[in-house]
């Protein structure tokens, strides 16, 4: 089985839908299959990485815990769309994990660098 590089684009806020968690599940599965995977957070997806989440009152699992496990799975390249951060008044320092803020011009390049792109 030949290897491929995966880019997973996650554009949804956490908890309002299962999309954020579903994207993480796909990323972790890629890692278990030892395929290189990059996560790109765009639009409301950047809100997934805010620290201090506590979804116990809405009966969901804390995504911050899953996110913190990403480096253990060798998922180390986390990119966030700079324009999406700006539009929400956020700085990368407010996020749970170290991320690469990607300018609009660089997103096409990021896509072109990967063999498979999965949107979730």
């Amino acid at each position: 089985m030949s290897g491929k590089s995966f880019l997973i684009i996650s554009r949804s806020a956490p908890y309002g839908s299962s999309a954020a968690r579903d994207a993480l599940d796909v990323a972790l599965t890629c890692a278990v299959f030892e395929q290189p995977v990059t996560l790109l957070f765009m639009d409301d997806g950047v809100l997934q990485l805010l620290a201090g989440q506590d979804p116990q009152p809405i009966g969901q699992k804390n995504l911050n815990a899953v996110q913190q496990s990403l480096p253990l799975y060798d998922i180390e390249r986390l990119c966030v769309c700079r324009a999406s951060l700006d539009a929400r008044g956020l700085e990368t320092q407010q996020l749970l994990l170290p991320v690469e803020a990607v300018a609009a011009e660089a997103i096409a390049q990021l896509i072109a660098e990967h063999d498979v792109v999965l949107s979730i």
Partner: protein
Amino acid sequence: MLFSIVVHAAPVQNQGADTALRFARAVLAAGHGIYRVFFYRDGIHNGSALSSLPPDEANIPAQWQALAAEHGLDLVVCIAAAVRRGMLNAEEAQRYDRSSSNLAPGFELSGLGQLVDACLQSDRVITFGGRS
């Protein structure tokens, strides 16, 4: 006061099903009544008898059933939306010649007229939506 609750959101994929359930509990806890909960669009999946979750995740259909059993709620699933999406009770399974049914006990299939009736009979109607 008498409430009716309309649910368009499917469990698992959308938070709206859980928000509706919490709202229903709060209504009852405050001593108000719930005339009907009406499930429409993908919200019909709230009536699934087959939803199977790990023990540490919320089983929304089971929670509706428990709440209905405790408080005698009228849980109505839109029949036209349900049969198209593969949610059948025994009667509809027979009508469409399917080998099994999957609507949970405590839920009832009925027409959109039950939504209009709920609006007419209740002091307040609130919808919990998904998207699209």
